[in-house]
């Protein structure tokens, strides 16, 4: 009987899950393995990848200029994540505790800006902050400043752009955990004499820490690859690992080196995801 059941279930299981399994194998697993292989390949004088084993790409990763950029990428990703947490936590707490009919609208207002293309929104920041931009022109008209402030093309503006792009990825998981937070617990805590900050640190924060973890993963990892943000707002002064990879695949044309650089990003991703799982993080919370 069970054997019969098993057999009769095999066909539908294969039919239903087969297409996705094939798709993911062919367009996710194989390409990533191919990148790994390519990172050990040489290139000929015409910059074609040839299948001859070499470690030269990995040696080139230790170029001091590159190492400086890895450090800068990690710093920018770290600052972006930290600012996102500090900015999003109180914000999400407030909107998740408003009345339910207003809550949906407040929540949608976080999402709506993201229906406009991210590139053009980043360019919007540039229009606003540039030396002939709107902020500087207004301040000069008001005679608050004599000459335009130099706001663009530094680490700060790159972080600003990253925070801007990734802010909702912090809000969404936080919203999910904070909305579920049982109000009775807070009331119980205050009934038992706990002050506001005690309730926060002993009850609210521990119960929402999983949201902070998921949000941090969703913010930190993409930051390393968002090359267009540092291109537009950093103006080439704040390169990320993403910029290095982009250059090798578009203009630099050394795909093997680009592949080796990508392996760094893959390793960082694996490391952080493992860490996340070790801290009890649920992978399904990363799906948004």
């Amino acid at each position, binding site marked *: 009987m069970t054997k019969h059941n098993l057999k009769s*279930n*095999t066909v*539908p*299981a294969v*039919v*239903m*899950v087969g*297409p*996705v*399994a094939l*798709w*993911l194998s062919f*367009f*996710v*697993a*194989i*390409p*990533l393995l*191919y*990148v790994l292989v390519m990172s050990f390949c040489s290139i000929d004088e015409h910059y074609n990848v040839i299948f001859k084993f070499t470690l030269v790409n990995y040696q080139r990763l230790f170029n001091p200029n590159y190492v400086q950029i890895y450090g800068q990428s990690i710093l920018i990703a770290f600052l972006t994540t930290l600012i996102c947490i500090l*900015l999003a936590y*109180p*914000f999400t707490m*407030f909107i998740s505790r408003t009345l339910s009919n207003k809550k949906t609208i*407040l929540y949608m*207002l976080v999402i*709506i*800006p*993201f*229906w*406009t*293309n*991210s*590139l*053009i929104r*980043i*360019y*919007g*920041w540039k*229009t*606003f902050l540039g030396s002939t931009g*709107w902020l500087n*022109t207004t301040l000069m008209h008001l005679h608050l400043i004599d000459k335009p402030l130099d706001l663009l093309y530094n680490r700060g503006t790159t972080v600003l752009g990253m925070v*801007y792009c990734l802010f909702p990825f912090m809000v969404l998981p936080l919203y999910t955990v904070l909305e579920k937070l049982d109000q009775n617990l807070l009331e119980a805590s205050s009934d038992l004499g706990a002050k506001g900050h005690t309730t926060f640190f002993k009850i609210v924060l521990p119960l929402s820490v999983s949201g902070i973890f998921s949000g941090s993963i969703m913010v930190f*990892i993409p930051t390393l*690859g968002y*090359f*267009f943000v540092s291109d537009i707002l950093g103006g080439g002064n704040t390169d990320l690992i*993403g910029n290095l990879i982009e250059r090798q*695949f578009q203009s630099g044309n050394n*795909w093997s080196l*680009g592949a080796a650089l*990508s392996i760094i990003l*893959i390793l960082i*991703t694996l490391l952080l*995801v493992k860490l996340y799982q070790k801290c009890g993080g649920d*992978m399904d919370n*990363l*799906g*948004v």
Partner: protein
Amino acid sequence: MKRRNKIALAKISKIIYCSLVYLFLFLPIVVIVANSFNATTSKPYLTWKGFTFAWYGKLFQNTALLDSFRTTIIIAVISTILATCIGTIAAVGMYKYKFKGKNTIDALLYIPVVIPEIVLGISLLTLFTKVNIPRGILSLVIAHITFSVPYVIFNIRARLSGYDNSIEEASMDLGANRIKTFFNITLPVLAPGIAGGALLAFTLSIDDVIISYFTNGQTKTFPLKVMESIKSGVSPDVNALSTLILVGTTIIVVLSQSGIFSKNKTQKAIKN
């Protein structure tokens, strides 16, 4: 009295704080919309020279820009439909059946979600080059399906966690076969999850910059057209198109959201 003042102060500071965050989120949008009415004609179109509707007229003469927008929509529609089909049956299959390799498929599903987009982009580029898939609409559709299928599956999976298997059994007991049961019972119950997943896939597709940037060949989607123009200064007709897209998506999503909500309500009403 003092306590009441304190509470009022806390409330006001909360409102101010949230308003500042919304200001931060909407500031570039305001700049984009305002600049679409900017009468300036000199590059890089940054200074305000007065109000005009002219760019909306010029937009409809800019065939390259309109073409890129059409390409974006074509790719988004095709990839959303395919990703939703493959994703839906896979989500149901993975929920209903136990089989070897399920964990592997799960792991593969998480990769496009967590890995930096640039890695997925260059890995697809190397594959397309290796197996000679021409770069263009086809490669873009493949790439977009690849990054949106996991989101479709996760959306439906969230819906399935409260799914009652017995209604399917009832349907089969009453003589319906698997396929009939799938279309008449499973699909309608999952409809909100499927719609949510499809909407997400569509949004991800029209907004995608990084993965398209590596897999497009000569084909230009709207975001790539924007990227191309950024170096010389984005001309306000791009802002005009962005403004129209924003208004359009807002209307569509508000309508579809209210549609989903009303469907939820009728289902709840039926259950009660």
